[in-house]
Protein backbone atom coordinates (compact mmCIF):
# COMPACT_ATOMS: atom_id res chain seq x y z
CA UNK A 1 0.00 0.00 0.00
CA UNK A 2 2.87 2.41 0.70
CA UNK A 3 3.87 2.00 -2.94
CA UNK A 4 0.42 3.12 -4.00
CA UNK A 5 0.62 6.09 -1.67
CA UNK A 6 4.05 6.96 -3.01
CA UNK A 7 2.80 6.77 -6.60
CA UNK A 8 -0.32 8.75 -5.85
CA UNK A 9 1.66 11.50 -4.18
CA UNK A 10 4.16 11.70 -7.04
CA UNK A 11 1.40 11.88 -9.63
CA UNK A 12 -0.45 14.44 -7.61
CA UNK A 13 2.71 16.54 -7.33
CA UNK A 14 3.20 16.35 -11.06
CA UNK A 15 -0.28 17.74 -11.55
CA UNK A 16 0.35 20.63 -9.20
CA UNK A 17 -0.67 23.93 -10.79
CA UNK A 18 2.06 26.01 -12.38
CA UNK A 19 1.77 29.04 -10.16
CA UNK A 20 3.79 32.14 -10.99
CA UNK A 21 5.92 33.48 -8.18
CA UNK A 22 4.30 36.72 -7.04
CA UNK A 23 6.56 39.73 -6.56
CA UNK A 24 7.16 41.46 -3.23
CA UNK A 25 7.36 38.44 -0.92
CA UNK A 26 10.56 39.77 0.63
CA UNK A 27 9.05 43.19 1.30
CA UNK A 28 5.94 41.63 2.80
CA UNK A 29 8.12 39.53 5.06
CA UNK A 30 10.02 42.57 6.24
CA UNK A 31 6.76 44.45 6.83
CA UNK A 32 5.41 41.47 8.71
CA UNK A 33 8.50 41.48 10.88
CA UNK A 34 8.01 45.18 11.60
CA UNK A 35 4.35 44.63 12.45
CA UNK A 36 5.25 41.80 14.78
CA UNK A 37 7.76 43.96 16.58
CA UNK A 38 5.27 46.80 16.92
CA UNK A 39 2.59 44.38 18.10
CA UNK A 40 4.99 42.89 20.60
CA UNK A 41 5.93 46.31 21.94
CA UNK A 42 2.28 47.35 22.07
CA UNK A 43 1.44 44.11 23.83
CA UNK A 44 4.05 44.70 26.48
CA UNK A 45 2.86 48.27 26.98
CA UNK A 46 -0.77 47.11 27.04
CA UNK A 47 -0.12 44.37 29.58
CA UNK A 48 1.97 46.65 31.74
CA UNK A 49 -0.65 49.38 31.62
CA UNK A 50 -3.45 46.94 32.30
CA UNK A 51 -1.58 45.51 35.26
CA UNK A 52 -0.87 48.94 36.70
CA UNK A 53 -4.40 50.09 36.03
CA UNK A 54 -6.03 47.08 37.62
CA UNK A 55 -3.69 47.31 40.60
CA UNK A 56 -4.78 50.90 41.08
CA UNK A 57 -8.41 49.90 40.74
CA UNK A 58 -8.19 47.24 43.41
CA UNK A 59 -10.30 48.36 46.34
CA UNK A 60 -8.30 49.71 49.24
CA UNK A 61 -9.10 47.65 52.28
CA UNK A 62 -9.84 49.85 55.24
CA UNK A 63 -10.65 48.58 58.66
CA UNK A 64 -12.28 50.52 61.43
CA UNK A 65 -9.65 51.73 63.89
CA UNK A 66 -9.87 50.25 67.35
CA UNK A 67 -12.45 52.04 69.45
CA UNK A 68 -11.13 54.01 72.44
CA UNK A 69 -13.33 51.95 74.74
CA UNK A 70 -11.84 48.64 73.61
CA UNK A 71 -9.01 47.22 75.68
CA UNK A 72 -7.00 44.53 73.90
CA UNK A 73 -5.26 41.59 75.51
CA UNK A 74 -1.54 41.57 74.87
CA UNK A 75 -0.07 38.27 73.76
CA UNK A 76 2.38 36.70 76.17
CA UNK A 77 4.48 35.48 73.26
CA UNK A 78 4.95 36.44 69.64
CA UNK A 79 6.45 34.28 66.95
CA UNK A 80 7.78 34.82 63.47
CA UNK A 81 5.06 35.51 60.94
CA UNK A 82 3.95 32.38 59.06
CA UNK A 83 4.80 32.05 55.39
CA UNK A 84 2.43 33.87 53.06
CA UNK A 85 1.37 36.30 55.72
CA UNK A 86 -0.59 39.18 54.21
CA UNK A 87 0.95 42.63 53.97
CA UNK A 88 -0.59 45.23 56.24
CA UNK A 89 -0.84 47.40 53.14
CA UNK A 90 -3.29 44.90 51.61
CA UNK A 91 -5.00 43.80 54.81
CA UNK A 92 -4.91 46.56 57.45
CA UNK A 93 -5.40 45.99 61.15
CA UNK A 94 -7.53 47.89 63.67
CA UNK A 95 -4.24 48.54 65.48
CA UNK A 96 -0.88 46.88 66.09
CA UNK A 97 -0.27 45.58 69.58
CA UNK A 98 3.28 44.40 68.92
CA UNK A 99 5.76 45.18 66.17
CA UNK A 100 9.16 43.58 65.78
CA UNK A 101 11.91 43.04 63.25
CA UNK A 102 14.96 40.84 63.22
CA UNK A 103 16.72 43.13 60.76
CA UNK A 104 16.21 46.84 60.39
CA UNK A 105 16.48 46.70 56.60
CA UNK A 106 14.09 43.81 56.20
CA UNK A 107 10.52 43.31 57.23
CA UNK A 108 8.54 44.37 60.26
CA UNK A 109 6.04 41.91 61.68
CA UNK A 110 2.91 43.47 63.12
CA UNK A 111 0.71 41.62 65.56
CA UNK A 112 -2.81 42.93 65.95
CA UNK A 113 -5.68 41.92 68.24
CA UNK A 114 -6.66 38.24 68.24
CA UNK A 115 -3.29 37.03 66.93
CA UNK A 116 -3.66 38.72 63.55
CA UNK A 117 -0.23 38.83 61.92
CA UNK A 118 0.81 41.14 59.11
CA UNK A 119 4.12 42.08 57.55
CA UNK A 120 5.43 45.40 56.30
CA UNK A 121 8.53 45.84 54.14
CA UNK A 122 10.72 48.63 55.43
CA UNK A 123 13.14 50.76 53.46
CA UNK A 124 16.56 49.34 52.74
CA UNK A 125 18.28 51.44 55.37
CA UNK A 126 19.07 51.17 59.03
CA UNK A 127 16.32 53.48 60.26
CA UNK A 128 14.88 52.07 63.44
CA UNK A 129 11.08 51.62 63.22
CA UNK A 130 8.92 53.18 65.91
CA UNK A 131 5.40 52.11 66.86
CA UNK A 132 3.06 54.76 68.23
CA UNK A 133 1.80 54.15 71.79
CA UNK A 134 -1.76 53.68 70.53
CA UNK A 135 -0.58 51.13 67.94
CA UNK A 136 -2.05 52.99 64.97
CA UNK A 137 1.11 54.30 63.31
CA UNK A 138 4.47 52.81 62.46
CA UNK A 139 7.25 55.18 61.50
CA UNK A 140 10.09 53.74 59.38
CA UNK A 141 12.58 54.86 56.78
CA UNK A 142 9.76 54.46 54.22
CA UNK A 143 7.54 56.95 55.98
CA UNK A 144 4.58 56.98 58.31
CA UNK A 145 2.37 53.91 57.99
CA UNK A 146 -1.24 54.09 59.13
CA UNK A 147 -1.90 50.53 60.26
CA UNK A 148 -5.66 50.99 59.88
CA UNK A 149 -5.47 51.86 56.18
CA UNK A 150 -2.16 50.39 55.06
CA UNK A 151 -1.21 53.75 53.53
CA UNK A 152 2.31 55.08 54.00
CA UNK A 153 2.89 58.83 53.99
CA UNK A 154 6.36 59.97 53.02
CA UNK A 155 8.35 61.93 55.55
CA UNK A 156 10.13 63.87 52.80
CA UNK A 157 13.56 63.02 54.10
CA UNK A 158 12.84 63.73 57.77
CA UNK A 159 14.29 61.24 60.23
CA UNK A 160 11.85 59.42 62.55
CA UNK A 161 12.44 60.08 66.25
CA UNK A 162 9.27 58.94 68.03
CA UNK A 163 5.72 59.73 69.02
CA UNK A 164 4.24 61.69 71.84
CA UNK A 165 2.90 59.56 74.68
CA UNK A 166 -0.69 60.08 73.54
CA UNK A 167 0.19 59.20 69.94
CA UNK A 168 -1.14 62.53 68.61
CA UNK A 169 2.26 63.83 67.54
CA UNK A 170 4.95 62.24 65.39
CA UNK A 171 8.40 63.63 66.09
CA UNK A 172 10.97 63.84 63.31
CA UNK A 173 14.31 65.51 62.79
CA UNK A 174 15.01 67.71 59.81
CA UNK A 175 18.76 68.09 59.66
CA UNK A 176 20.58 70.81 57.79
CA UNK A 177 23.20 69.77 55.27
CA UNK A 178 26.82 70.12 56.33
CA UNK A 179 29.42 68.73 58.69
CA UNK A 180 27.75 70.25 61.73
CA UNK A 181 24.57 68.70 63.09
CA UNK A 182 21.86 71.35 63.12
CA UNK A 183 18.26 71.66 62.08
CA UNK A 184 14.89 71.19 63.71
CA UNK A 185 12.95 68.75 65.79
CA UNK A 186 9.52 68.87 64.20
CA UNK A 187 6.20 67.65 65.53
CA UNK A 188 3.58 66.68 62.95
CA UNK A 189 0.09 65.28 63.13
CA UNK A 190 0.48 61.63 62.09
CA UNK A 191 -3.09 61.48 60.79
CA UNK A 192 -2.66 64.13 58.09
CA UNK A 193 1.01 65.16 58.22
CA UNK A 194 0.18 68.73 59.30
CA UNK A 195 2.98 70.65 60.96
CA UNK A 196 2.36 71.36 64.66
CA UNK A 197 5.52 72.79 66.19
CA UNK A 198 9.32 72.77 65.90
CA UNK A 199 12.33 73.18 68.16
CA UNK A 200 15.62 74.37 66.74
CA UNK A 201 18.64 72.13 67.30
CA UNK A 202 21.75 73.85 68.51
CA UNK A 203 24.67 73.13 66.18
CA UNK A 204 26.67 70.16 67.39
CA UNK A 205 29.17 67.57 66.21
CA UNK A 206 28.39 64.54 64.10
CA UNK A 207 26.86 61.95 64.17
CA UNK A 208 23.14 62.58 64.00
CA UNK A 209 22.43 61.04 67.37
CA UNK A 210 19.30 62.68 68.74
CA UNK A 211 16.64 61.34 71.10
CA UNK A 212 13.36 63.00 71.96
CA UNK A 213 10.40 62.40 74.27
CA UNK A 214 7.25 64.43 74.94
CA UNK A 215 5.49 64.34 78.30
CA UNK A 216 2.04 62.71 78.25
CA UNK A 217 0.34 66.05 78.89
CA UNK A 218 2.46 67.75 76.22
CA UNK A 219 3.92 70.24 78.71
CA UNK A 220 7.55 69.11 78.41
CA UNK A 221 9.86 67.99 75.65
CA UNK A 222 13.21 66.30 76.39
CA UNK A 223 15.95 66.14 73.80
CA UNK A 224 19.26 64.28 74.16
CA UNK A 225 22.33 64.35 72.00
CA UNK A 226 25.96 63.51 72.72
CA UNK A 227 25.54 62.95 76.46
CA UNK A 228 23.61 66.17 76.99
CA UNK A 229 19.97 66.52 77.96
CA UNK A 230 17.77 69.55 77.21
CA UNK A 231 14.30 70.05 78.67
CA UNK A 232 11.89 72.48 77.03
CA UNK A 233 8.43 73.59 78.04
CA UNK A 234 5.46 73.58 75.64
CA UNK A 235 6.37 77.07 74.44
CA UNK A 236 9.82 75.93 73.32
CA UNK A 237 11.60 77.64 76.27
CA UNK A 238 14.65 75.84 77.60
CA UNK A 239 14.05 74.90 81.23
CA UNK A 240 17.39 73.29 81.95
CA UNK A 241 20.28 71.54 80.35
CA UNK A 242 22.63 69.03 81.93
CA UNK A 243 25.32 66.54 81.07
CA UNK A 244 24.12 62.95 81.10
CA UNK A 245 25.93 59.62 81.06
CA UNK A 246 23.36 57.79 78.96
CA UNK A 247 20.38 58.45 76.76
CA UNK A 248 16.64 58.90 76.95
CA UNK A 249 14.76 55.66 77.58
CA UNK A 250 12.68 55.88 74.41
CA UNK A 251 9.68 57.91 73.34
CA UNK A 252 7.86 57.09 76.60
CA UNK A 253 10.65 58.23 78.90
CA UNK A 254 8.35 60.59 80.83
CA UNK A 255 6.69 58.91 83.80
CA UNK A 256 2.92 59.58 83.53
CA UNK A 257 1.48 61.91 86.14
CA UNK A 258 4.86 62.30 87.84
CA UNK A 259 7.59 64.84 87.34
CA UNK A 260 10.16 62.21 86.36
CA UNK A 261 12.10 61.29 83.26
CA UNK A 262 13.72 57.89 82.58
CA UNK A 263 17.21 57.62 81.14
CA UNK A 264 19.24 54.50 80.41
CA UNK A 265 22.84 54.41 81.59
CA UNK A 266 24.53 51.18 80.65
CA UNK A 267 22.55 48.46 82.45
CA UNK A 268 20.69 50.88 84.68
CA UNK A 269 17.40 52.69 84.16
CA UNK A 270 17.34 55.86 86.24
CA UNK A 271 14.61 58.42 86.90
CA UNK A 272 15.48 62.13 86.82
CA UNK A 273 13.49 64.85 88.48
CA UNK A 274 12.12 67.09 85.74
CA UNK A 275 12.11 70.15 88.02
CA UNK A 276 15.85 70.33 88.41
CA UNK A 277 17.27 67.42 86.48
CA UNK A 278 18.51 65.68 89.62
CA UNK A 279 18.90 61.89 89.75
CA UNK A 280 16.65 59.55 91.72
CA UNK A 281 15.56 55.90 91.74
CA UNK A 282 17.48 53.49 89.47
CA UNK A 283 16.57 49.97 88.28
CA UNK A 284 19.26 47.39 87.66
CA UNK A 285 18.60 45.74 84.29
CA UNK A 286 21.68 43.53 84.15
CA UNK A 287 19.93 40.43 85.49
CA UNK A 288 17.42 40.43 82.66
CA UNK A 289 19.56 41.29 79.70
CA UNK A 290 20.41 37.78 78.57
CA UNK A 291 20.70 38.47 74.89
CA UNK A 292 23.40 40.43 73.18
CA UNK A 293 22.12 42.96 70.71
CA UNK A 294 22.81 46.45 69.54
CA UNK A 295 19.35 47.61 70.46
CA UNK A 296 19.29 49.80 73.56
CA UNK A 297 16.89 49.17 76.40
CA UNK A 298 13.93 51.46 76.34
CA UNK A 299 10.75 52.02 78.25
CA UNK A 300 7.80 50.60 76.34
CA UNK A 301 5.16 51.54 78.88
CA UNK A 302 4.31 52.27 82.49
CA UNK A 303 2.20 50.40 85.01
CA UNK A 304 1.18 52.62 87.90
CA UNK A 305 4.49 54.42 87.69
CA UNK A 306 6.58 51.28 87.24
CA UNK A 307 8.41 50.84 83.98
CA UNK A 308 7.89 48.13 81.38
CA UNK A 309 11.23 47.75 79.68
CA UNK A 310 12.28 46.29 76.35
CA UNK A 311 15.13 43.88 77.11
CA UNK A 312 15.94 43.32 73.43
CA UNK A 313 14.06 40.06 73.23
CA UNK A 314 11.72 40.01 76.16
CA UNK A 315 9.58 42.65 77.80
CA UNK A 316 9.88 42.91 81.57
CA UNK A 317 7.66 44.72 84.04
CA UNK A 318 9.38 46.16 87.12
CA UNK A 319 6.22 46.49 89.14
CA UNK A 320 6.90 44.61 92.36
CA UNK A 321 8.83 41.46 91.50
CA UNK A 322 10.17 41.88 87.96
CA UNK A 323 8.09 39.78 85.62
CA UNK A 324 8.47 38.83 82.00
CA UNK A 325 5.36 40.04 80.16
CA UNK A 326 6.16 39.12 76.59
CA UNK A 327 8.60 36.78 74.94
CA UNK A 328 9.89 37.51 71.47
CA UNK A 329 10.82 35.01 68.75
CA UNK A 330 14.56 35.53 69.14
CA UNK A 331 17.07 38.29 69.12
CA UNK A 332 15.43 41.33 67.64
CA UNK A 333 16.73 44.54 66.21
CA UNK A 334 13.43 46.22 66.91
CA UNK A 335 10.61 45.51 69.32
CA UNK A 336 7.78 47.86 70.11
CA UNK A 337 4.28 47.54 71.44
CA UNK A 338 1.21 49.58 72.09
CA UNK A 339 1.00 50.83 75.65
CA UNK A 340 -2.44 52.41 75.56
CA UNK A 341 -5.64 50.45 76.20
CA UNK A 342 -3.90 47.12 76.61
CA UNK A 343 -4.19 44.40 79.24
CA UNK A 344 -1.36 42.02 80.07
CA UNK A 345 -3.31 38.81 80.23
CA UNK A 346 -0.37 36.38 80.40
CA UNK A 347 -2.48 33.93 78.44
CA UNK A 348 -0.92 31.80 75.75
CA UNK A 349 -1.68 33.24 72.32
CA UNK A 350 -3.53 31.32 69.64
CA UNK A 351 -2.17 30.26 66.28
CA UNK A 352 -0.98 33.18 64.16
CA UNK A 353 -3.58 34.37 61.67
CA UNK A 354 -1.80 35.33 58.44
CA UNK A 355 -4.71 37.36 57.12
CA UNK A 356 -7.54 36.94 54.60
CA UNK A 357 -6.99 34.24 51.97
CA UNK A 358 -6.91 36.56 48.94
CA UNK A 359 -4.52 39.06 50.51
CA UNK A 360 -2.21 36.30 51.77
CA UNK A 361 -1.75 34.82 48.32
CA UNK A 362 -2.05 38.09 46.42
CA UNK A 363 1.35 37.63 44.79
CA UNK A 364 0.27 34.25 43.44
CA UNK A 365 -2.98 35.71 42.15
CA UNK A 366 -1.08 38.54 40.47
CA UNK A 367 1.26 36.06 38.80
CA UNK A 368 -1.66 33.94 37.61
CA UNK A 369 -3.41 37.03 36.34
CA UNK A 370 -0.29 37.97 34.40
CA UNK A 371 -0.14 34.53 32.82
CA UNK A 372 -3.81 34.78 31.83
CA UNK A 373 -3.22 38.19 30.28
CA UNK A 374 -0.30 36.89 28.27
CA UNK A 375 -2.34 33.88 27.15
CA UNK A 376 -5.17 36.19 26.10
CA UNK A 377 -2.70 38.32 24.15
CA UNK A 378 -1.24 35.29 22.37
CA UNK A 379 -4.73 34.03 21.63
CA UNK A 380 -5.65 37.42 20.17
CA UNK A 381 -2.59 37.28 17.92
CA UNK A 382 -3.60 33.81 16.72
CA UNK A 383 -7.11 35.04 15.98
CA UNK A 384 -5.69 38.02 14.13
CA UNK A 385 -3.47 35.73 12.05
CA UNK A 386 -6.40 33.43 11.28
CA UNK A 387 -8.55 36.38 10.26
CA UNK A 388 -5.84 37.69 7.96
CA UNK A 389 -5.28 34.24 6.42
CA UNK A 390 -8.98 33.78 5.84
CA UNK A 391 -9.22 37.25 4.30
CA UNK A 392 -6.32 36.48 2.00
CA UNK A 393 -7.87 33.15 1.00
CA UNK A 394 -11.15 34.87 0.18
CA UNK A 395 -9.27 37.42 -1.93
CA UNK A 396 -7.48 34.68 -3.85
CA UNK A 397 -10.74 32.91 -4.52
Amino acid at each position, binding site marked *: *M*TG*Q*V*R*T*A*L*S*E*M*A*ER*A*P*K*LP*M*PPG*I*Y*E*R*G*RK*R*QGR*QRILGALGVVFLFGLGVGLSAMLPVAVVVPAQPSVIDDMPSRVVNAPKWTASVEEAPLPRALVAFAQRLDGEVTLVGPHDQYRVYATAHDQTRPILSPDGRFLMTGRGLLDVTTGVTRSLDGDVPLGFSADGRLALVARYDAGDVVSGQIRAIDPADGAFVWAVELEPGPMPHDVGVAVAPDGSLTAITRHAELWLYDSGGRLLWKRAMDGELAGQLAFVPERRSLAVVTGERLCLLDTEKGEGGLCYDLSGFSTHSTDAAHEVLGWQEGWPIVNMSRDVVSFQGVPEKLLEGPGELSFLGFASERVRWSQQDPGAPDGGPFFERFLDLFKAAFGVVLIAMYVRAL*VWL*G*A*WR*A*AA*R*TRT*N*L
Partner: protein
Amino acid sequence: MGRDGGRTSFEEFAAARWGALVRVAYLLTGHPQDAEDLLQSALERVAMRWSTLEEPEAYTRKVLYTQATSRWRRLRSRPAEALTGQPPERPAAVQREVETRIVLEAALERLTRKQRAVLVLRFYEDLSEAQTAEVLGCSVGTVKSQTRHALSRLRALNPHLLREAVRP
Protein backbone atom coordinates in the same frame (compact mmCIF):
# COMPACT_ATOMS: atom_id res chain seq x y z
CA MET B 1 24.53 41.45 4.05
CA GLY B 2 22.83 44.70 3.05
CA ARG B 3 19.10 45.00 2.63
CA ASP B 4 19.26 45.06 -1.17
CA GLY B 5 21.74 42.23 -1.16
CA GLY B 6 19.47 40.27 1.14
CA ARG B 7 16.48 40.82 -1.11
CA THR B 8 18.42 39.76 -4.18
CA SER B 9 19.72 36.57 -2.63
CA PHE B 10 16.29 35.78 -1.20
CA GLU B 11 14.58 36.25 -4.55
CA GLU B 12 17.20 34.10 -6.26
CA PHE B 13 16.62 31.37 -3.70
CA ALA B 14 12.83 31.64 -3.93
CA ALA B 15 12.85 31.60 -7.74
CA ALA B 16 15.11 28.55 -7.82
CA ARG B 17 13.01 26.59 -5.33
CA TRP B 18 9.53 27.92 -6.23
CA GLY B 19 8.47 25.03 -8.47
CA ALA B 20 9.47 22.31 -6.02
CA LEU B 21 7.95 24.17 -3.10
CA VAL B 22 4.66 24.64 -4.97
CA ARG B 23 4.44 20.89 -5.47
CA VAL B 24 5.01 20.21 -1.79
CA ALA B 25 2.53 22.90 -0.78
CA TYR B 26 -0.03 21.45 -3.14
CA LEU B 27 0.47 18.00 -1.68
CA LEU B 28 0.05 19.40 1.79
CA THR B 29 -3.12 21.37 1.07
CA GLY B 30 -4.73 19.76 -1.96
CA HIS B 31 -5.98 23.15 -3.19
CA PRO B 32 -4.13 25.51 -5.56
CA GLN B 33 -5.19 28.64 -3.68
CA ASP B 34 -4.33 27.17 -0.31
CA ALA B 35 -1.00 25.97 -1.66
CA GLU B 36 -0.13 29.43 -2.93
CA ASP B 37 -1.25 31.03 0.31
CA LEU B 38 0.73 28.53 2.39
CA LEU B 39 3.85 28.98 0.33
CA GLN B 40 3.69 32.76 0.34
CA SER B 41 3.13 32.80 4.07
CA ALA B 42 6.05 30.45 4.63
CA LEU B 43 8.37 32.46 2.40
CA GLU B 44 7.37 35.68 4.17
CA ARG B 45 8.47 34.06 7.39
CA VAL B 46 11.70 33.00 5.77
CA ALA B 47 12.24 36.57 4.56
CA MET B 48 11.80 37.84 8.12
CA ARG B 49 14.85 35.90 9.22
CA TRP B 50 16.68 35.74 5.90
CA SER B 51 19.75 37.66 7.04
CA THR B 52 20.34 35.28 9.95
CA LEU B 53 19.62 31.95 8.25
CA GLU B 54 22.50 29.56 7.74
CA GLU B 55 20.49 26.83 5.98
CA PRO B 56 17.59 28.53 4.19
CA GLU B 57 16.50 25.33 2.44
CA ALA B 58 16.06 23.44 5.70
CA TYR B 59 14.39 26.36 7.43
CA THR B 60 11.99 26.91 4.54
CA ARG B 61 11.02 23.26 4.56
CA LYS B 62 10.47 23.35 8.32
CA VAL B 63 8.35 26.49 8.14
CA LEU B 64 6.30 25.09 5.27
CA TYR B 65 5.46 21.91 7.12
CA THR B 66 4.83 23.49 10.49
CA GLN B 67 2.65 26.15 8.87
CA ALA B 68 0.77 23.46 7.00
CA THR B 69 -0.02 21.56 10.17
CA SER B 70 -0.90 24.65 12.19
CA ARG B 71 -3.08 25.98 9.39
CA TRP B 72 -5.57 23.28 10.28
CA ARG B 73 -6.54 25.50 13.17
CA ARG B 74 -6.15 28.76 11.32
CA LEU B 75 -8.34 27.76 8.42
CA ARG B 76 -11.32 26.74 10.45
CA SER B 77 -13.18 29.60 8.86
CA ARG B 78 -13.30 27.50 5.70
CA PRO B 79 -16.62 25.58 5.54
CA ALA B 80 -16.06 22.23 7.14
CA GLU B 81 -15.98 19.26 4.84
CA ALA B 82 -18.77 16.83 5.52
CA LEU B 83 -17.30 13.51 6.55
CA THR B 84 -19.58 10.64 5.76
CA GLY B 85 -17.40 7.67 6.55
CA GLN B 86 -18.27 6.35 3.14
CA PRO B 87 -15.64 5.83 0.47
CA PRO B 88 -15.68 8.34 -2.37
CA GLU B 89 -17.79 7.43 -5.33
CA ARG B 90 -15.82 5.63 -7.99
CA PRO B 91 -15.94 6.86 -11.53
CA ALA B 92 -17.34 4.01 -13.53
CA ALA B 93 -15.66 4.60 -16.86
CA VAL B 94 -12.00 4.94 -15.89
CA GLN B 95 -9.31 2.36 -15.76
CA ARG B 96 -8.64 0.66 -12.47
CA GLU B 97 -5.24 2.28 -11.82
CA VAL B 98 -6.56 5.73 -12.50
CA GLU B 99 -9.51 4.92 -10.34
CA THR B 100 -7.26 3.87 -7.49
CA ARG B 101 -5.21 7.07 -7.75
CA ILE B 102 -8.28 9.27 -7.74
CA VAL B 103 -9.76 7.43 -4.82
CA LEU B 104 -6.48 7.66 -2.95
CA GLU B 105 -6.17 11.37 -3.57
CA ALA B 106 -9.69 11.91 -2.36
CA ALA B 107 -8.91 9.85 0.72
CA LEU B 108 -5.82 11.96 1.40
CA GLU B 109 -8.16 14.91 1.76
CA ARG B 110 -9.71 13.25 4.78
CA LEU B 111 -6.53 12.87 6.74
CA THR B 112 -5.53 15.36 9.36
CA ARG B 113 -2.98 17.97 8.33
CA LYS B 114 -0.33 16.30 10.39
CA GLN B 115 -1.02 12.84 9.04
CA ARG B 116 -0.89 14.25 5.54
CA ALA B 117 2.39 16.05 6.24
CA VAL B 118 3.90 12.86 7.63
CA LEU B 119 2.92 10.92 4.50
CA VAL B 120 4.33 13.62 2.20
CA LEU B 121 7.61 13.69 4.08
CA ARG B 122 7.92 9.92 4.30
CA PHE B 123 6.67 8.83 0.87
CA TYR B 124 7.12 11.85 -1.39
CA GLU B 125 10.28 13.41 0.03
CA ASP B 126 11.65 10.00 1.05
CA LEU B 127 12.80 11.19 4.45
CA SER B 128 13.51 8.79 7.25
CA GLU B 129 11.39 8.75 10.39
CA ALA B 130 14.07 10.66 12.28
CA GLN B 131 14.35 13.32 9.56
CA THR B 132 10.58 13.62 9.43
CA ALA B 133 10.43 14.08 13.18
CA GLU B 134 13.06 16.80 12.98
CA VAL B 135 11.20 18.73 10.30
CA LEU B 136 7.88 18.52 12.13
CA GLY B 137 9.42 19.18 15.52
CA CYS B 138 8.00 16.07 17.10
CA SER B 139 9.29 12.73 18.33
CA VAL B 140 10.07 9.70 16.18
CA GLY B 141 7.35 7.85 18.06
CA THR B 142 4.84 10.47 16.99
CA VAL B 143 5.93 10.08 13.38
CA LYS B 144 5.50 6.31 13.61
CA SER B 145 2.08 6.53 15.15
CA GLN B 146 0.92 9.24 12.74
CA THR B 147 2.11 7.15 9.80
CA ARG B 148 0.36 4.08 11.13
CA HIS B 149 -2.87 5.96 11.75
CA ALA B 150 -2.72 7.64 8.35
CA LEU B 151 -2.28 4.37 6.49
CA SER B 152 -4.92 2.59 8.48
CA ARG B 153 -7.30 5.47 7.85
CA LEU B 154 -6.59 5.27 4.14
CA ARG B 155 -7.31 1.56 4.23
CA ALA B 156 -10.52 2.16 6.13
CA LEU B 157 -11.62 4.71 3.57
CA ASN B 158 -10.55 2.49 0.66
CA PRO B 159 -11.04 -1.19 1.53
CA HIS B 160 -10.16 -2.26 -2.01
CA LEU B 161 -6.59 -0.92 -1.41
CA LEU B 162 -6.21 -3.44 1.36
CA ARG B 163 -7.42 -6.19 -0.93
CA GLU B 164 -4.89 -5.13 -3.51
CA ALA B 165 -2.16 -5.00 -0.93
CA VAL B 166 -2.76 -8.60 0.19
CA ARG B 167 -3.27 -9.91 -3.29
CA PRO B 168 -0.37 -12.24 -4.27
